[in-house]
């Protein structure tokens, strides 16, 4: 029984982290059809910015420790907005007519450039911004101890997922976005400012990536190279759920998170295989992913 509860809890916590990482990636692909490899860099820069700000705060300000919970998202929003605008306005908007494969290569180059830039700005020493992680204490569930910070991340992920679903399905902006997703040219002909939609979407996606990094920072040692590692997992999640689908990212995160947790507890030797095994299985049955729509090719 303890093992079953542990699998459920671990799977849920890991899934919430996976969703945080994958949400921005799937939003950008859904609207812009860009498989953004640089999303890993947004995650890394958000983590570095959040960790640096929290480290500075605890070293130099004798204030309330709980302010650090605001500093993390603040750092992520500043980093995400600046980066998102710079990348979209400075590079991507000139390439929208290029095919998707070229955009993968362009954003991969961007990943490499941003990784070096991160080192120049934040240095190569790891940041250990641990204070927020311990502030909320811990709780015991079925004899197992869990960090309340991890449980808070589950709530944050659920809020972001609900918010994204609400905006896309229940607001005018969401309707306009869905129109752009459905057919960019027709939407433009109907008077939708597609360029502004693209810029806003990319900034939101970049900010979500940076937010995932900033909220993860207190639980890890933030060091160069962390962005490259998460991008592969994020791809696995969005491919399982269907590229561009928020619902897909939620279900994909839960499937991968719970399967991995079950493997770690019951058969640790196949833990790594399980993540990609789930992906392969889904793709064998539904090549477009669980929530992806099979698209007719334009000739």
């Amino acid at each position: 029984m303890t093992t079953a509860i542990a699998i459920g809890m671990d799977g849920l916590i890991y899934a919430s982290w996976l969703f945080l990482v994958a949400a921005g990636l799937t939003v950008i692909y859904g609207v812009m059809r860009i498989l953004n490899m640089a999303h890993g860099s947004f995650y890394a820069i958000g983590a570095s910015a959040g960790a640096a700000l929290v480290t500075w705060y605890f070293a130099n300000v004798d204030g309330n420790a709980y302010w650090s919970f605001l500093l993390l998202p603040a750092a992520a929003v500043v980093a995400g907005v600046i980066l998102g605008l710079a990348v979209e306005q400075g590079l991507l908007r000139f390439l929208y007519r290029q095919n998707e494969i070229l955009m993968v290569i362009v954003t991969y180059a961007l990943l490499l450039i941003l990784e070096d830039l991160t080192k120049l700005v934040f240095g190569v020493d790891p940041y250990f911004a641990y204070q927020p992680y311990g502030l909320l204490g811990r709780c015991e569930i079925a004899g197992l101890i869990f960090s309340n910070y991890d449980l808070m991340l589950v709530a944050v992920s659920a809020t972001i997922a609900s918010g994204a679903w609400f905006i896309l399905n229940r607001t005018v902006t969401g309707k306009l976005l869905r129109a752009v997703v459905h057919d960019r040219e027709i939407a433009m002909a109907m008077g939708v400012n597609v360029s502004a939609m693209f810029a806003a979407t990319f900034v939101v996606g970049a900010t979500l990536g940076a937010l995932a990094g900033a909220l993860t920072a207190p639980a890890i040692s933030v060091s160069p190279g962390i962005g490259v590692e998460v991008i592969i997992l994020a791809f696995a999640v969005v491919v399982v759920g269907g590229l561009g689908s928020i619902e897909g990212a939620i279900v994909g995160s839960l499937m991968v998170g719970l399967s991995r947790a079950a493997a770690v507890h019951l058969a640790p030797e196949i833990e790594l295989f399980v993540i990609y095994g789930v992906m392969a299985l889904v793709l064998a049955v539904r090549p477009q992913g669980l929530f992806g729509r099979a698209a007719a090719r334009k000739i």
Partner: protein
Amino acid sequence: MKTTTKTLGSALALAATVALTSGASAADEAKFRLGLVTFLSGAAAGPFGVPAANGAKVLIEALNDGQVPAPYTAKGINGVEIEPVIIDEAGGTTKQVEEYRNLVERQKVDAVIGYISSGDCLAVSPVVEELKVPTVFFDCGTSRLFEENKTPTYLFRTGPDAVIDNIAAARYLIDTGRKTDSIAGINQNYAWGQDSWADFKATMLALKPGTKVVAEQFPKIFQGQYGAEISAISVARPDVVHSSFWGGDMEALVLQGTARGLFDGRTGILTTGESGLDRFKAQAPNGLILGARGPFGALQPDTALSKWFTALYNAKTGLQPTYPTSKMAQAILGLKAAAEKAGAKPGSLPSKEALVGAFPGLTFESVAGTVAMSRAGGHQALQDITYGEYQYDKKADKASLAKLKTYAGDCVMPPDGISSADWIKAGFPGAKCN
């Protein structure tokens, strides 16, 4: 931030030095061109590569200025100025083999010191013998190095074999009276993690038959999130949790494990934990056992040379040397000792053959005590190893290691001619322990 800025500043200063020196004439006989290979980018740069590069910079400057205490008072190497040529170890084994060839054939280095990754060491080692350039591996620990290359000539390793990390870890647990009825391990899923766990498990079973192995976790390297693994180990309720995690993975495990009670009421032992000593603060529990892969970093013996180097490094970088720093310094001093033993006239360089002839059997003083090049036909260093308990003083905001216990190299390293696995299985024949 201040620390990071200083570290980055040191790294940039080193890069600038290299940029200025890389255009020097290869035929410039007034200088000893020393290739240095360490991670300057990627996940291993922060905890290992850059501290090692900074250690090299600080020591080479002091050597060239003739400021190093006895027995290293001669300037540079045998009175010849050392000119560093540093390259990044990142990029994988194929790239490193190419880079090594470049160092030798185009940069015309007189010797090479480098390599943190065991994979890089194994890939480069045959090329060392092919190109016939004295090469010292300063950090990589794979036991396979001299098991695969049985007749080395130009290749040396001044850092200990990794097997001693885990044999000494098991001995420390038993000698300090820890409860060790059941053990669990969380190690990275590649050769380093699997070999480390295999050595530790085999040693525990050999020293204390009947020990139960209750959980074995092998997460992917750089995974960063260990929630499920921590739960799985907690459910198994072991007395001991062993890990050879390094760098950011190790620090993340400590942070998440402490928050989730992984080390409550049981002993945690981290074979590379010393590299996080200054960052753990209250996030690691007092009593956590940390190693430094030898007597390095905070576990350096209290010798005049060690104290001098620690003070110099601290003055130049604002940091305490961690084990990669000490191991790099040890390799440079070993190369200098061998070159000066080779018998060339002061102010001139020995031939490569004379240098490699002087290395086997050499005993030299390092910043981490005495090192004997006495294994693998004199190509592998034999050295003590120390473990200690983490203690954090919250009032003073200072971490230290207590209850230190040192094991002689002869106690924890197999003699020539037998693999580490067979030596452990046979009950450590010939081990000389106090």
